[in-house]
């Protein structure tokens, strides 16, 4: 096996490291979102300065998470990049196609609840997870 000379940092350990980094940023973003959502009511009695600060922290951590995700995808191999690209395309498509009728149904009271942005985020998350799982199954 004289020609088999793996790179210094293997693909597996590089991906593992990037996954942990992305998970940390994701966790931090969820925590920052919870702070922004519940803080005004339960922690600082709707004081404007603290609320603005929490929003700023949330946006900053969100930018960090976006960059971590970008790096994660950039350092995947080409097959995984294809899987993620397909998943992202499906997710964006579903979000655009589903959000408009959802909003219209809310406006004309076709649905018995208020259309919230968090519903769209959940739909996008589920679509993304299912699409990535399908892509991995397809190329297994």
């Amino acid at each position, binding site marked *: 096996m004289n020609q*088999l000379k*793996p790179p210094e940092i*293997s*693909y*597996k350990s590089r*991906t593992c490291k990037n996954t942990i980094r992305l998970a940390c940023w994701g966790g931090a973003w969820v925590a920052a979102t919870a702070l922004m959502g519940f803080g005004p009511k339960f922690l600082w009695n709707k004081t404007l300065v603290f609320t603005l600060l929490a929003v700023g922290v949330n946006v900053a951590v969100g930018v960090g998470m976006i960059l971590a995700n970008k790096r994660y995808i950039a350092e995947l*191999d*080409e097959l*995984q990049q294809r899987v993620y690209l397909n998943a992202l395309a499906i997710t964006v498509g579903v979000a655009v196609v589903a959000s408009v009728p959802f909003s219209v149904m809310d406006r004309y009271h076709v649905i018995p609840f208020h259309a919230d942005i968090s519903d769209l985020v959940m739909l996008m998350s589920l679509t993304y997870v299912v699409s990535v799982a399908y892509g991995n199954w397809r*190329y297994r």
Partner: protein
Amino acid sequence: MKNRLKVLRAERNWTQAQLADALDVSRQTVNAIETGKFDPSLPLAFRAARLFALHIEEIFHDEDRSSLATES
């Protein structure tokens, strides 16, 4: 596109994981290329050719060209 990756790997007694490490890709990618589910990019094909010390066309074959050659 057809390829001889599985044969070349077997000749050298390499596992898919070992070949994946050498090519700096996942084992899943090696498997997908071997089974014809995924065509590698040109840089990855060159890496495979360098690894096996062969020309790209000795590893990867264009199916349409092969059938044309057989017909003529």
